[in-house]
């Protein structure tokens, strides 16, 4: 019977992988708490105030937001394909899907910038309601920006051979982070544009 030898580095990786995954998920939970506190503050203000949007402030453009949302949700799908292709050893497809994810993330950020620049009348002095909107969407936009940087670094690292088909925790963490950013936008899109 042939004995299988495990390199010490691989053994260490296998032993600590679940720990690192748990640590990263805890980080995501802490981020979720941060968003939740702002979201509940906004919902409280909205339920106790004069309605949304306040008098004198025009409604947000739902159609444009829907398009921008589809762009971000699409980037979640491309990120999923990127990781799946990496697991199956298809490097070129992986790189293509990851680049598509980065491009869609930048597209979303440009869309958000365009929305800020063209936001309708009354928003500049809309008080705590406007502050809630800009704080939450701005904080989310900052997370998308960090995600774009994160994914770009992952792309460069994978090109340089840092990851293998057996050891790719960084890519898993990047995918979790990007899905998290998508999921937060589902909530923000619902409460600001749909309710």
């Amino acid at each position, binding site marked *: 019977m042939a004995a299988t030898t495990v390199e010490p580095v691989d053994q260490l990786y296998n032993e600590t992988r*679940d720990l690192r995954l748990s640590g990263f998920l805890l980080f995501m939970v802490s981020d979720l708490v941060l968003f939740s506190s702002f979201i509940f503050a906004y919902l409280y203000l909205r339920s106790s105030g004069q309605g949304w949007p306040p008098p004198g402030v025009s409604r947000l453009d739902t*159609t444009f937001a829907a398009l921008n*949302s589809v762009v971000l949700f699409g980037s979640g799908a491309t990120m999923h394909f990127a990781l799946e292709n990496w697991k199956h050893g298809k490097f070129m497809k992986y790189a293509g899907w990851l680049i598509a994810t980065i491009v869609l993330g930048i597209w979303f950020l440009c869309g958000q910038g365009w929305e800020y620049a063209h936001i309708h009348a009354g928003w500049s002095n809309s008080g705590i309601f406007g502050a809630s909107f800009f704080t939450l969407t701005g904080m989310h936009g900052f997370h998308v920006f960090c995600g774009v940087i994160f994914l770009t670094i992952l792309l460069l690292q994978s090109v340089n051979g840092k990851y293998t088909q057996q050891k790719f925790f960084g890519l898993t963490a990047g995918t979790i982070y990007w*899905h998290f950013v998508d999921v937060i936008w589902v909530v923000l899109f619902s409460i600001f544009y*749909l309710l």
Partner: protein
Amino acid sequence: MNVVMLERVVSVIGAIIVAGTASVALRNDWRTPGLENQVFKGMLALLALGAVLAFFAAIGVLGRAP
């Protein structure tokens, strides 16, 4: 076709594609074990939900025009 109509058409087509691919990916990963795959499944489900919401927003069922 004006800009708003173009935005609606692109949103509807994109939302259908994203919801479809997320649902198919969710079905393919349904039986995969492990913590990370459970997280991915939950997030893919929410991604599909988001695409459905964007679809209804694009066709004017959800949300209101400015």
